[in-house]
């Protein structure tokens, strides 16, 4: 595959990458101000992302899961600098993104792209498929009109669409096909890193598997690295190498997918996993569910210390007073990080 070669070559071009870490996020914070009154004075802040740190290794898929409002999408957008971080650093290779000028950032963006959730809202209805996919090439000044057209046809073929569709408009396509168009657009500049924000949530069940298989094939062929953001925990286990679980702006547990899913050490992860319905009546009959009481507290006024203590049945005084540290219960090769004072209790 010619694409595969280019992608690998490009990865080597990112200089000074240590180990095989492609993206390193350090203490990332994103607060949204709450303004009130005629003077729009700031009266508080929604702490959407509050001190998140992780690495994504070259060629891996990191799954980021959590419920609505936990900050998982904001994390993805802030990494790509689509939102300006309130604090923290994001390294892409050895480039630090958070203090780049906009022209430097534009150059860097070639290598990192995003796939959006809603294939109905994320494609401009007045543009042809060809224009939608070649737009990033024009922005980055890649090629001329003829080579761009060729590239678009190549991309359409790559995502399983007929190259003949180049002059059609988004409304002529089904949801699954539109998501393929969104993927083709993201791949146009030959990026090495893709943030996929709920890329299958808006699709019908029978179409989801098509798109997930496509994402996996493309990863293999082009040597891509994914941050896969989703609330569908079954799909995240399937597609991810490692998984990070978010609650109220923080990562509470992170590790190899089988570690996190088979031996969850954080009470929130345990509840989240037990809440997922399994399409098997025999297993469902035998299962015991952990039902969490109440709702997720507001991120504008999160609980002190451990943010989960208000809904946690294991919470003790220390959980209300001291912020739990992130500790590794796994091995060096198979990490399993958890932020819970009582994690030992579950680690048998």
């Amino acid at each position, binding site marked *: 595959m010619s694409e595969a070669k280019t992608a690998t070559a490009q990865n080597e071009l990112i200089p000074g990458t240590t180990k095989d870490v492609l993206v390193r996020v350090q203490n990332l914070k994103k607060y949204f101000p709450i303004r009130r009154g005629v003077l729009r004075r700031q009266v508080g802040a929604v702490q959407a992302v509050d001190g998140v740190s992780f690495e994504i290794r070259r060629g891996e898929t990191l799954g980021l899961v959590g419920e609505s409002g936990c900050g998982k999408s904001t994390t993805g957008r802030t990494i790509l600098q689509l939102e300006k971080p309130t604090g923290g650093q994001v390294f892409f290779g050895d480039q630090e993104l958070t203090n780049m000028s906009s022209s430097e950032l534009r150059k860097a963006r070639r290598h990192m792209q995003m796939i959006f959730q809603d294939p109905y809202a994320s494609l401009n209805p007045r543009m042809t498929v060809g224009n939608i996919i070649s737009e990033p090439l024009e922005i980055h000044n890649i090629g001329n009109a003829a080579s761009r057209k060729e590239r678009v046809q190549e991309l359409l073929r790559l995502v399983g669409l007929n190259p003949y569709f180049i002059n059609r408009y988004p409304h002529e396509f089904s949801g699954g096909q539109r998501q393929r168009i969104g993927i083709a657009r993201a791949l146009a500049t030959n990026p090495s890193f893709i943030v996929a924000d709920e890329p299958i949530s808006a699709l019908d069940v029978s179409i989801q598997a098509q798109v997930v298989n496509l994402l996996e094939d493309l990863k293999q062929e082009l040597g891509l690295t994914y941050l896969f953001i989703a609330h569908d*925990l079954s799909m995240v286990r399937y597609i991810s190498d490692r998984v990070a679980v978010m609650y109220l702006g923080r990562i509470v547990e992170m590790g190899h997918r089988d570690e996190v899913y088979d031996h969850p050490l954080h009470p929130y992860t345990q509840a989240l996993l037990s*809440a997922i319905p399994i399409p098997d009546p025999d297993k469902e009959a035998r299962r015991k569910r952990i039902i*969490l009481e109440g709702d997720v507290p507001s991120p504008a006024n999160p609980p002190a210390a451990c943010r989960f203590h208000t809904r946690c049945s294991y919470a003790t005084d220390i959980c209300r007073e001291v912020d739990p540290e992130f500790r590794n219960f796994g091995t060096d090769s198979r990490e399993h990080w958890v932020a819970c004072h009582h994690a030992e209790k579950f680690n048998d």
Partner: protein
Amino acid sequence: MSHLLEVKNLVTRFYTEDGIVHAVNGISYTLDEGESMAIVGESGSGKSVSVLSVMGLIPSPPGKVEAGEVILNGRDLLKLSPEEMRHIRGKEIAMVFQDPMTSLNPVLTIGRQMTEGIELHLGLSKEEASQRAAEMLSLVGIPNAEDRLNDYPHQFSGGQRQRIGIAMALSCNPTILIADEPTTALDVTIQAQIIDLVKKLKEQLGMAIIWITHDLGVVAGLVEKVAVMYAGFIVEMGSVHDVYKDTSHPYTLGLLESIPKIDSKEKRRLIPIPGLPPDLLKEPTQCPFAPRCRYAIDKCWEENPPLVAIAPNHTAACWRAEEIHEGLRIDLPAGEPA
């Protein structure tokens, strides 16, 4: 023994500028007292239109219930006047909707919205109706129910709003509760709360339930009977065990194969259902699933298979249902079609 609800050959179409949408194409099922069933299907399968037809809630025009009978306690609901239907809806059959944000009126208090139906259907005074509404709210787990009757929908969380929707639906003791994707808009932990609540309420109150969903997981532990819909047809129906474990229709099989198993380490490639959802503007003459089906034979392109029994209380609409029921499996050809 007669059934609580009997739907016979229900046909609903929509007359649009683009042509006739064949939304529901002659479906039949029964529901017994206290029984719970699920109607499972993807968008456009006709699952919601079929229950809206039962409730007399199809917007007309463009929609029209063209044929069929809906027998509830010996009466055909499709023959009732709108005024008569008003006394059935909410009293005998009640409904919970998908989006708790939009199904409540934002400018009326919860109390006002709840007591309206209670006064109409149960003939209670204002105070009695308020009392009843407060009882229902505490039953579904809303704390300080009496005070909260004066609150507006925006003062509740999404999960609480769905609880209010359920309280409202059950406030007049309906014999049937229809839940149209009631947990789809909710997070998984809140979904688990709502499913848990509905199970408890069913034990306490004994109403029959029709649960509409696109998620095979949600209903696996919740209902006794499942009907799978595709392109306006019921393509497979039976006990939850029959449909999930002795699956006999290629579409049901495809749905089960295309979702990853959360409790499995093994990573086998997902088997997608190829192709696109059906075009409902075409009048169905062949099997509607044939274009996406790896089991299709010549006959499937010529004649639409009827829903027939393959085992006691287990039906499927597929010319090869018996073979599939006995374990026939065809692998996806290499270089799978996208």
